[in-house]
């Protein structure tokens, strides 16, 4: 790209930024980087630049890069949720592609900044992950690459099993301590009597709290539980879990708002582009690109398209409420813009779909539930909109992963780990579950058990380090 083009792009960024602000978007300042495909796919496969090394990233990178090399797929844009935010532009993008990507990125950054699920997100995550990478490299140096890699294999097997509201837990315990401290500080006329054994109490209470945190069971946060309670891990291993945990805390809000986030960015890139001065050719190029992004894919669900349609629908319904809506819900009309901004602030995918996916939309989008019938035919089995919506919501719950929790860390009175899959109608992939259980065993170091349901019967899987059992 020549300097002249970069100049033009700089101007475009200023212009797009102004348009976005006029629309009411409120993104962090954003820096754009023009990068070659290798870097684009690297950032794309690690999700953040500078993360620690692991073969799984290399696998993703290789796959994405190969797809790109063969012209099968192309990432136009990668955006990093930090303050200031980062947008990556592929150096082979055309000027129009770049403008659209810039507008799209600003939509994402506005979402990152304002959606409540991101309110606790570490906005300096790039620095954090690079210190993690540094530390993991040091552990590799000290304990051997293979040892660290194998351990990470095990940690990553359960990385999604964290508590998305982990920060509440953390805050409560801090607040709780404060409250207690205040309570103790309040003095009445005879309080000096208590001072007599204060030394003893101080020696006892906070310390025992710190060293042996009372186990809150059941515990959904498997990573946290392993880090705190595993009988077998050493210091560096607990540190690795803590780092992975911290990174997952950062990624979970993105996993919770995929549809909303993409829909939001798409709706705003479309509107911003319409405000720019494009000539006929540019208009056509943009229309092509846009329809490529927000078009339905047969059989699958395109999150960009679904989110886009729902926001549009919300806006329309709040702009022009029906008579019934006016009377029943007191909607005044012309509140569409306000409403979608409220939704982008308060909802996540689950509540977004539950609250705003309507019968009319389900019909218009021709959504359906399908399943495998007689082990060979994927068949549409349900079209009633409420069922479709509920299925979609249920598939999004816990960001699409089975809900596991620790029930007992001293099972059989023998420091064995007992976990339970909160069964909600869908069975686990048993081959995977057994292998993943081996990874859990690596972390726990003693026999592990997982209760789940197979063929409508409660079943417990066991793994003791050598062999699998089941009953």
């Amino acid at each position: 790209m020549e300097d002249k083009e970069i100049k033009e792009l700089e101007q475009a960024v200023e212009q797009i930024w102004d348009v976005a602000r006029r629309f009411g978007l409120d993104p962090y300042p954003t820096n754009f980087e023009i990068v070659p495909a290798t870097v684009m796919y690297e950032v794309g496969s690690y999700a953040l630049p500078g993360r620690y090394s692991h073969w799984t990233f290399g696998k993703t990178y290789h796959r994405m890069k190969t797809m790109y090399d063969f012209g099968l797929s192309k990432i136009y844009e990668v955006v990093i949720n930090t303050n200031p935010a980062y947008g990556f532009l592929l150096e082979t993008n055309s000027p129009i592609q770049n403008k659209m990507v810039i507008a799209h990125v600003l939509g994402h950054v506005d979402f990152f900044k304002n959606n409540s699920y991101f309110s606790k997100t570490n906005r300096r995550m790039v620095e954090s992950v690079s210190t993690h990478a540094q530390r993991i490299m040091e552990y590799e140096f000290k304990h051997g690459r293979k040892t660290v890699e194998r351990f990470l294999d095990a940690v990553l097997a359960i990385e999604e099993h964290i508590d998305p509201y982990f920060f509440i837990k953390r805050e409560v315990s801090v607040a709780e301590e404060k409250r207690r401290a205040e309570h103790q500080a309040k003095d009445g006329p005879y309080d000096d009597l208590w001072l007599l054994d204060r030394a003893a109490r101080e020696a006892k209470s906070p310390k025992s709290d710190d060293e042996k945190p009372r186990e809150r069971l059941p515990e959904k946060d498997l990573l946290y539980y392993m880090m705190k309670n595993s009988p077998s891990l050493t210091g560096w291993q607990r540190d690795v879990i803590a780092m992975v945990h911290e990174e997952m805390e950062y990624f979970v809000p993105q996993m919770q708002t995929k549809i909303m986030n993409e829909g939001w960015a798409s709706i705003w890139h479309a509107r911003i582009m319409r405000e720019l001065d494009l000539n006929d050719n540019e208009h056509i190029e943009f229309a092509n690109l846009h329809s490529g992004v927000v078009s339905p894919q047969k059989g699958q669900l395109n999150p960009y398209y679904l989110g886009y349609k729902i926001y549009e629908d919300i806006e329309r319904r709040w702009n022009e409420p029906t008579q019934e809506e006016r009377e029943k819900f007191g909607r005044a009309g012309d509140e569409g813009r306000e409403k979608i901004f409220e939704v982008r602030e308060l909802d996540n995918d689950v509540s977004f779909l539950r609250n705003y996916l309507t019968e009319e939309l389900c019909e218009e989008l021709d959504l359906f539930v399908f399943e495998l019938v007689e082990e060979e035919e994927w068949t549409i089995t349900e079209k009633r909109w409420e069922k479709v919506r509920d299925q979609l919501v249920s598939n999004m719950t816990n960001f699409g992963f089975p809900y596991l929790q620790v029930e007992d860390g001293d099972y059989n009175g023998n420091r064995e780990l007992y976990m339970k899959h909160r069964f909600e109608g869908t069975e686990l992939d048993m081959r995977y579950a057994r292998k993943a259980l081996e990874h859990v065993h690596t972390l726990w170091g003693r026999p592990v058990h997982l209760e789940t349901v197979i063929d409508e019967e409660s079943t417990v899987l066991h793994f003791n380090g050598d062999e699998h059992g089941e009953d």
Partner: protein
Amino acid sequence: MSIQRNDWSLQRKGIIDQERHKDRVKEAIRKNLGSIVSNEAIILSDGKRTVKVPIKALDEYKFRFNYEKSKHVGQGDGKTRVGDVIARESRPGSGQGSGQAGQDVGADYYEAEVNIDELAALIFEDLQLPYLEEKAKKAVQSRKTQFNEIRRTGVIANLDKRRMILENIRRNAREGNPRFGDIKKEDLRFKTWEEVMRYESNAVVIAMIDVSGSMGEFKKYIARSFYFWMVRFLRTKYDNVEIVFISHHTEAKEVTEEQFFTQGESGGTVVSSAYQLALDIIKQRYRPSDWNIYPFHFSDGDNYYSDNEEAVRLADELIATCNLFGYGEIGEEGSSSYRRSSGALLSIFSDRLQHKDRFVGVRIDDKEDVYPALKQFFGRRGVETPA
């Protein structure tokens, strides 16, 4: 707000971790050699350098839902109805056996690109040739000239015309006139040679296969995959490996490689006919003093009862002339627990042969047995090879 364009040329993380992934693939291959060795893609590769082989155990295992037992939400074109079939489950192969095995098929395999030479190196790491003898070493030591370099100067007799023409066209093209002609001195290229001393070592494999009526597709495939690796292996150890193909039912005859692997099966089995032919061929063409001789025979062991005595006698005779005699008895597919009666050839051989130290008999019931069989034939003698 800014637009930046930095130099990312030192950014190599993705590539470095891609290497880590490759290491893992290699490791997985090493662990799965048993099933890879007899993989169709390789055995039938027909000279291709790389093949795709499915490998287990490279997935990132997580707790996840059973996709096939889950309900999913999809989007149609506006006309879908309940009961419409939107896709069919394609199941690779039909012989997937019991339910347990059924869980192993499908998309859970990682398709790895495997370079056959690299794979061979892995497989042969543990193998060595048994009873490799120095056959009249000095006599066959030879001086060989090897043309292995191209230079700009040389003897005109060694002019490499093909390269010269290419260079000429290239130079003309550089000068803006891509054609052949107007040869100048700088276009000339000469072959040069090096003299190398070679210790000739020769080996001949006498591949014998039973094509009687009882040898079905599977059995032949097993024999084929075994020979595939055996020949490759021998070629790494000897300068010159010849293979003689003999097929037999009640009579034996020498056949071409293609016939050997594709011939239809019929008739009964007289094993001694093949051994007799092998002995004749050795006598005529491969003097044991000059050649390392490796006869291998694959059969299902259903020899005519009346021929057994003769077969054992000739086998003993073969063993006396050769480095190692291998006999593979191939069972029915997947019948590993099935034990044959004492009438089968393998048990007769192990009872009655006189020179057992140069005899290796294995039983192969399954594709996965090919690798252990290779190890048994070529394993390091005196050292326990882990199965």
